[in-house]
Structure formats: C-alpha cells, structure tokens
C-alpha cells in the first residue's frame, strides 16, 4: 500500500510557530476547538502539549506487547473499553491542555477617562467568567520556567540529576508535531464506533464526523494525544494531513508555510501484511529497524509490479521513486520515528538535531566544522544523545549516533567544497557513505526546491472536479447550512471542509456588511473574528449593542462618508 508521510529536519526548526498558527487558521479556528492544535511546536526538554503526554504509565496510550507475544491496547481490550464507556478513566481534562480564553477588549474603548489605563481582562471561553491565564499550548516555550517545568519532562526520568537546568547550560531544540498517521493507529483501534479509518489510497487517518459518537476512547488511545475532543460538537477531531490540499498535489498548510523549509512530504510504499509483525517485535529498540523493513524499495521492479497489481496508479509509483521521505528514511537513513516504543508505527519522522552538539563546540571555542571535533563531541555529550534516543529510538543510542555522525560528516565535507578545496573522500567513508551519496543528501537537506521537498501525486484527474479544495463543483447551493441551536451546536449537515474554512473566512473578511447580520452563534474565536461586528458572547451582557444601525446615523454612516470622500 502507499502512504503519504512526512519528515522534519529538526536542525532547521527555529521555533517560530508559523506552522501552528497557519494550521489553526485553516482548521481549528472554530468554537469548540479553541484549545485544539493539530500542529504544535514543543521546546525540548519540556512538558509537551498536553502536559506530560509521553507518560504512558499515566495516560495508557498506544500498544503494548503482552507476555504471550501478542499486541494489545495498553488501556485494555474491547470489553474493558465498553465497560468504562460511561466515564473514560484516562481522558485528559481541559486543565491538562489549557482553559481557552479571550479578552474583554471593549473596556479599552468604552472606559471613561480614568487615572489608570483600562485593562482588557482575560475571560474564559468555557464559562465567560474572569480567569487567570495559567497555561497554554506553549507555556514553556524556549525553556521558559525551565527549572519548574522542563525538569518534569518525562524523558528526563533517570537522568534528571545530570541535566543542568540553568538556562545557559542546558541543551534545547524544537519539536513540531502533527498527527503521525500511523501504520498501526491505536486511536482507530480504540474507537468503539469504528469512525476512525485509514484511507487505503494514501494512508491518511481520518475521523468520520457522521459516525463519531463522542465516546472519547480515541483521545486516550492515541499516545501522541493528537486526537482532540471538540467540546461544542461532541465529536473527535484530528490533523487531516490537509487531505483536500494533498489530493490536488499541494503540500499541507504547515509544510507550505514553514519558514525554515524543514518539512518533506512524499510517498512510501509498504507491505501492509507485515505491519502487525513489525509492531510486535520483542524489543522496543528493534522497532525502528522493524518499521524500516516494512517499507518497500520503489526502485525494485518486483515492488513496482506488485504495486501495479494492487491498483496503485503509475504516477503514484513514479512519485514513490522520487519521494524525499523514502530517501531520508531508507536511502540515507537519517530520519527516525518519534517514539517507536508506542508500537503504532508512526509515519512522521524526524532528522535529529545536530545543533545542540555544534552549539556547545562553538561556545567552547572549538572548530565546530571539524569532523574529529564533532565526532568526539557526539561521543562525549552523552546527555543530549541519550535524550534524543529516548525520543526517537526507544533509548537505543547507536542509531542516533549514526545519524548525528552523518550530519557531522556532511558538515565538514561540505566545508571543504564550499571553500573551493578538494573533497576529502575519507569523511563520507567514515560514516559508510559514498561522496556522491553524501553530496546528494546535502542537496536534499540544504538546497532542495519546493517540488523536490514535496512530491505529492494528485488524486485522479477523472475525479478532480469533485475534490474539496478545487470546489469547481456547485459552490454553496446544496449545503444545508449549519443549523444550530435546538439539537445542539453544529447539528445539521456539515459543510465541506474547504468551503467552511476558505469561503466563509473570505466572505467574512471581505464583505462590507456584518455577515449574517453580525450574529454568530456560540462563542467567538478572535482568530476568525473579522472585527466588523460584535458577535454574541464577545462581551458580557449589558453592554450597548455595537452592530451599526442603518438609519444613516452612527459609526456606519461615518465610515461610509469617509470612504466616499
């Protein structure tokens, strides 16, 4: 089968959160999803989002291998799930994420003249009452409050006494996370309704919103906590790998807008019959190699023939051959899976950062491009390497060291070339690569253009007019519109995702009049507020109505006059 997968090069991540913000604008700028970040960026060491999600002793996500060698959900099998269905015992509460809030901006403009500046107080989006903002999706960003927070990082258990939490002395890197679109998704396995499915064409894991009944077992089942419960609609939502975009060959929003250009998207062909076998290997540290062995070499004629026989179109096989993801995972072997020990076989992989090592070398006055120095530093800096191993290889430091050595070798080999010197062939040889391979890896990591980083075959042309993002199909006529109220928020027929997120936003931002008379049912998310009207719930009751009157009086007339002049 074919799977769309992603690789992120952590060395290039500057922690700007552009991916998170654009993703939120595109997908989760609705009431009920205020706390939902399909994409979030964590500072490591740190607690992550939601807090300490990696502590599976507590949250019971993912799979375990039982003593009899069979795979089981860590939180219990089918009967246990049904018996605990009335109150999920392992559901993170909103406090483990954070209580969403907005600000009472109206006091800033309506306040009478006073000696002190008026203050826009934070208001809870759950209760509408004043609240103290105490946590958010990236509260410990850039090691903020690290002595208090980062020290509680789950992965530091056992080495916490050796990690210096002084701000200047600790190592740090960023970890952007989206849904892993696992080959063996434990969220799907946990869903009592069978609403979560893996698309057989491209392996994207999706929640069928019409079949989800809000049992919440998927939230507990996902060890990465990348399924969120929309508390307004009562349904689970998750990263969609921007399927309306990738169907037409566009990269996901997070990739498209990534400032560091650190994301790669491509196809990986894999043997679906061997997925369970790979997820069941005895040792956690063997899972990385086991998952790699499930991927099939797209250059192998036998694989191509089998793919064709399985109905994978020719252009998809061609895309798999050019896939940057496959190259980084299996050809250069520099990409590693995130927490393979959860046994879900995740499909968003990471190139671990060499930067903590390089930074320390440079700060201590050493030549940070010299191979010998870097290799020695990788050996000497046990703590960062062990930490990376806990993140990417279930604690096995050897694969992490190999990757870091390759990155170090690339660094020092390319310095010679950049300075116009002859390349030193012994450098690639010392990490088991040819000069040609090392250079091509450098090209892919440093120079690759848009169409090399994102090799996304489109869904098939004969279906294209109905794909969501193209929307050349009848635009809005037949959508029932989200009738709200009586049966609970969001009842009625759902709008197509692309229309809801693109056309509605566009209409609200460009129309001259408040859309729908300025009334927006439910709570207001300021990310999607157009600033043209005061929707219900933005301000506490009792404030004068801010919707401009149409009788020629008031601010509307004043603005019209100004625009006319």
């Amino acid at each position: 089968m074919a799977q769309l997968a992603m690789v992120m090069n952590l060395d290039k991540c500057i922690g700007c959160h552009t991916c998170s913000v654009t993703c939120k604008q595109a997908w989760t700028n609705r009431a009920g999803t205020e706390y939902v970040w399909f994409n979030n960026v964590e500072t490591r060491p740190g607690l992550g989002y939601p807090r300490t999600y990696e502590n599976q002793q507590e949250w019971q996500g993912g799979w375990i291998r039982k003593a009899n060698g069979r795979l089981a959900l860590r939180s219990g099998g089918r009967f246990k799930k049904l018996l605990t269905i009335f109150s999920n015992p392992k559901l993170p509460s909103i406090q483990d994420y954070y209580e969403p809030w907005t600000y009472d901006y109206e006091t800033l403009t309506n306040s009478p003249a006073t000696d002190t500046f008026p203050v826009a107080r934070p208001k809870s989006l759950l209760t509408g009452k004043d609240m103290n903002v105490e946590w958010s999706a990236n509260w410990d960003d850039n090691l903020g409050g690290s002595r208090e927070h980062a020290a509680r990082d789950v992965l530091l258990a056992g080495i916490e006494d050796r990690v210096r939490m002084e701000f200047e002395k600790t190592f740090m890197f960023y970890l952007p996370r989206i849904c892993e679109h696992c080959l063996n998704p434990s969220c799907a396995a946990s869903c009592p309704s069978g609403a979560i499915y893996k698309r057989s064409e491209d392996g994207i894991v999706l929640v069928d919103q019409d079949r989800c009944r809000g049992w919440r077992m998927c939230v507990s089942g996902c060890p990465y906590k990348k399924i969120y419960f929309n508390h307004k609609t009562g349904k689970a939502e998750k990263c969609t790998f921007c399927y309306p975009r990738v169907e037409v060959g566009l990269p996901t929003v997070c990739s498209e807008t990534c400032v560091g250009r650190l994301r790669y998207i491509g196809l990986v062909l894999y043997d679906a019959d061997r997925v369970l076998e790979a997820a069941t290997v005895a040792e956690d540290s063997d899972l990385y190699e086991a998952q790699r062995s499930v991927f099939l070499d797209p250059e192998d004629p036998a694989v191509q023939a089998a793919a064709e026989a399985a109905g994978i179109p020719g252009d998809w096989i061609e895309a798999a051959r050019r896939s940057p993801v496959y190259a980084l995972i299996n050809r250069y072997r520099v990409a590693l899976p995130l927490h393979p020990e959860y046994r879900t076989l995740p499909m968003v992989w990471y190139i671990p950062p060499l930067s903590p090592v390089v930074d320390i070398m440079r700060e201590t006055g050493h030549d940070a491009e010299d191979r010998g120095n870097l290799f020695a530093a990788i050996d000497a800096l046990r703590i960062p390497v062990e930490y990376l191993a806990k993140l990417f290889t279930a604690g096995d430091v050897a694969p992490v060291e190999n990757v870091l050595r390759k990155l170090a070798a690339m660094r020092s080999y390319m310095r010679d070339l950049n300075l116009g010197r002859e390349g030193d062939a012994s450098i690639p040889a010392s990490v088991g690569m040819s000069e040609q391979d090392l250079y091509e890896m450098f090209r892919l990591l440093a120079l690759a253009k848009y169409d090399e980083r994102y090799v996304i075959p489109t869904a098939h042309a004969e279906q294209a007019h109905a794909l969501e993002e193209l929307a050349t199909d009848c635009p809005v006529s037949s959508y029932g519109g989200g009738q709200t109220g009586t049966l609970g928020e969001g009842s009625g027929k759902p709008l197509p995702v692309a229309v809801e997120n693109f056309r509605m936003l566009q209409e609200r931002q460009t129309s001259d009049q408040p859309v729908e008379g300025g009334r927006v049912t439910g709570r207001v998310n300021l990310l999607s507020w157009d600033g043209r009207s005061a929707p219900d719930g933005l301000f506490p009751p009792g404030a004068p109505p801010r919707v401009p009157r149409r009788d020629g009086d008031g601010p509307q007339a004043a603005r019209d006059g100004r625009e006319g002049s």
Partner: protein
Amino acid sequence: MSLFLWVIFPYLCLAVFVVGHAWRYRYDAFGWTTRSSQLYEDRLLRLGSPLFHFGMLGVVGGHVIGLLIPRSWTDAVGIDEHRYHLGAVIGGLIAGVMALVGLAILVYRRRTVGPVFSATTAMDKVMYLVLTVVITLGMWNTIAGSTLNLGGEYDYREGVSVWYRSFLAFQPDASLMTQAPIGFKLHALAAFALFALWPFTRLVHVFSAPVGYLTRPYIVYRSRDVRPLGTSAARRGWERVGS
C-alpha cells in the same frame, strides 16, 4: 378521555419516536453524539455517570421482564408470585436507586460546574426534567405500590403489562389502564412524553451503543472512493460512472 390518554397519545408518541429518529439520522448524523462534557469535569462524572447508566440498564432490563413477559411464561418455568415479586422489588430498588442517585449527581454537576452549565442546551433541561419525573414516578410505584401497598394492592402484570402488550400488538385495550393506580398512569404518560422527546435530545446516543466494536477488526481501512467525493451531491450530468 381514556381513549385519548391510552390509545391516541401513546401512538402519537410512538410515531414521533420512530419517524423522529429516522429524520434525525438522515438529517443530522453529525449531531448524533453523546455530547460528552467529561473534558470539562471529571471527578463527579466518574461517580455519577456509571451509576446512572448501569442503573438505567438495570431499569430497562426490569421493564423488559415486567412488561413484555406474560405471567403464564414465568409460571411455566416455576417462578411463583412471591419469588417473582421479591426479585422484581429488590432488583428494581437497586437499579432505581442507582439511576436516581447517579442522576442527582449528574444534575448537581450540570448546575454547579461552570463550563458544564454553559454547555447545557434548552433541550437538555427539558430532557432532564422529564427523565427525573419518569424515574421518580417509577420509584414511587415500586416503593408505594409494591412494597408499602398504599392505596390497595395492584398487580401490574395483570393490568399495565397486558395493556402495554396490547398496545404493541396494535390492539390497544384502554380499559386496563383506567383501572390502574394514579402512580402507574402518570409514570406511563410521562414515559411516553419522554419517548416523544427522545429523537430530539442527546438520548439518541442510546441507539449507537457500540456493540459492533466487539467483533470488528481493530484497524478500519476505507477507500476514498466509497463515498461520493465531497459532501455535496453530484450535479445532474456530473454523476460518477457506475453510481
């Protein structure tokens, strides 16, 4: 009057129940959910929700036995009146108290926990009210009617149950209900009102009890092609080949 109360009104409610569900499922599959509020509050829910739900499962089971199984059947398997009565009262009391205590905890939680209260719809409030009335009247019938024998002895298996079976067989005998004590009458009427409300509340989640989970494979694969692409219907002339 008795014709309206025990024939017309029940059938009206039944019709609303059936048609309402069909309509809701077609029109509002997206709104068909438990509307869980566990994300907001956990501690009270962990106590109240299982109490209420398991209690209700017991209550429903008891009603199935009491209403649908004729006396002749239990006589045939050798359960005499006394033993049946004992089992019904004890089982009914346990299940009823569980449901009622659970409901009290849940309603208290709904009123006092801020986020849960703001997420409560008008339909929820109506539903809670009717549900409480139905359960309380049911408990009253169990305690007052069957245990304390207030207002004389009444054997519902010769009265209400027979009427209910005649109702389900579409040959309703209203006279059986007119002789029943007032508690049973009110309980039945309130229950039918609840049935009529059912399709328009979150109670619809009862019908998605996920028993299929026990037999289906863990990982579901689905092809993009199974459903029409996009959520809108294909326009005339644009239907996909083979559809």
